């Protein structure tokens, strides 16, 4: 799966979770950029991403992830292993 395809799917997940069809995420997107993205929604977002890509974040990754770009890196790393 190319990075573009990963981002395309990530957009869908973000739109579902935050119920907002306008959202488009980039490498630099963080919780500060999306109003509803608080610590409680974060849990739900990660679960939704895991479901979409059929993978799991481990705890170290959850703790260190800084932005959507790093999230995409982890996803690509896991699904191409």
């Amino acid at each position, binding site marked *: 799966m190319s990075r573009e395809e990963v981002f395309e799917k990530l957009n869908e997940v973000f739109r579902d979770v935050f119920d907002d069809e306008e959202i488009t995420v980039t490498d630099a997107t963080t919780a500060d950029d999306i109003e509803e993205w608080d610590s409680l929604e974060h*849990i739900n977002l990660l*679960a939704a991403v895991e479901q979409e890509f059929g993978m799991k974040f481990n705890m170290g990754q959850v703790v260190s992830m800084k932005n959507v770009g790093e999230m995409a890196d982890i996803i690509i790393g896991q699904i191409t292993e």
Partner: protein
Amino acid sequence: MRELEYPFDGEVILKKSKKIKRALLEERSDFTEKRIAVLGGSTTHDIIRMLELFLLEQGIRPVFYESEYAQYWQDVMFDNPELRSFAPDLIFIHTTNRNLVFPSVSDSQERVDGLLSEQYDHFRVMWEKIAEVYHCPVIQNNFDYPSYRLLGNQEGVYPQGRICFVNRLNEKFYQYAGEHGNFYINDINYLSAAYGLDRWADSLYWHMYKYACCMQAIPVLAHNLANIIKSVFGRNRKALVLDLDNTLWGGVVGDDGPENLEIGQETPMGQVYSEFQGYVKAQKEIGVMLAVNSKNEYDNAIAGLNHPEGVLKPEDFVLIKANWEPKSSNITAIAQELNILPDSLVFVDDNPAEREIVSAQNAGVAVPGIGTPEQYIRVLDHSGFFEVTSLSEDDRKRSEMYRANVERKIQQERFADYREYLLSLEMRGTIRPFEAVYMARIAQLTNKSNQFNLTTRRFTQAQIEAFAVDPGYITRYGKLADRFGDNGVVSVVIGRKGTAADVEIYRRGETPDTADGGGVLHLELWLMSCRVLKRDMESAMMDSVVEACRECGVGTIMGYYYPTAKNAMVKDFYQIMGFEKTEETDAGVTMWKFEIPAEYENKNTVIAVNADMEK
């Protein structure tokens, strides 16, 4: 909504919860609002988010109170104006093994026992406080098993083992639940086992977010919880409507012949259907009614049900619709004939096309995607349509009573003359002063009858017992049986002996505190179960009341009708009984007088009253 029906995809629900909620709110408008306090021993945010969806699906629109993180005990035990003013309709306590202090292996048996009762008491005092302050139903989690086993397979054997500890504590919870009404267990021990304990207990969710179970298990937990809640609030389904061919047996009875159906111990598939029939039959014991809805010749359907290896027999069903009508029309007819709403029905059919038609045509009917035969039991069971929160004698007899009503109706159609029909029922009544064995039933009827109820007065069982022994009151209960079955206690009358001047008090809708034993009987309560409408039971009750009056020198009976939203059917009741209207207030209250004549002729001529006692 399909997304929320078992077997559901919890991850999709989690992801799309906002969209699903919007759709649920658009789908209907007749929600009942319930105020639900969620008191957690761990994070509850997403539990509430999921619970809201599953409750909306049941027609319940929840308003939530959520305790601060892990404050479940403090919220109850210390004065809490916020929770008090919230006035919960129900309290859910979400605690798990993460909230327990476990023994260590070096602890003595005494120390372990001490730890056990200490933690049980921690919960018990909280439940007692809730009962005292909030008077609402409580749903309490039992405990899930820990994720690891220090003592390995002997965890359940040694008292120091955590599994042993959880089992003993759960046992105490069950005992409390068994001894206290309005207290229900949410069995997360079973739920976590069915879900898979390793996945359930994924500790990432605890250490990252303080969730006691994994995120993906939350829809399962919320679904289970919503089933208990809707059952507590009386929204369980009532009847299971079943297809026959390839649903209750393998094969098509009309084509293959009853002798070639797959049912019984001979083949693996036959065994599957036998087990399913056994499961369905057992539903009757928890008060679920069974009906058939099958495209078949009637005679073939009966032949299939009479298969010698079959567990279910024709008499297990309250109704059998085997014909070539669309199944959706049969469903409508079944709901009408049983006099229940379509949203009380569950339709089970192996054929997705038939399920689709019923889904589309019969709004409210549950139509589970039942899967393949070996999955039928799991799908029905885990769906929780008939979630048990109380098990009464009435539940166990419900099937019988409805079946008897259907038979009575058939009987009625055969008679041109209604009196002749009533006589054909061979009715036997028992009408007597209140007796100890029936007090609970009399109290139950008094507190739930709304339609055939002249005054809609509610009395506690203690008050009712006091009336029974007070010579200032005349009490009568009525039981009615007929050739089709026994209806049990169906009518209650309470009259207070006083003076004509008491009318002033009754006009205001009040009752005097004591009975002074005058010559006028004031009817404070007259009610009857709608189960026995138009059977002349009310006339028989009247005769008995008149007889009681004559025995103690009461010459006048005063009746009162207080209108409510539900009791219009008895507006003219006293007129029909031969009373004379003396007054009608602006509020619609009517007052009625009956002077007992020297020669009173019994009104009832169709029920044999107290026949077995006199002879």
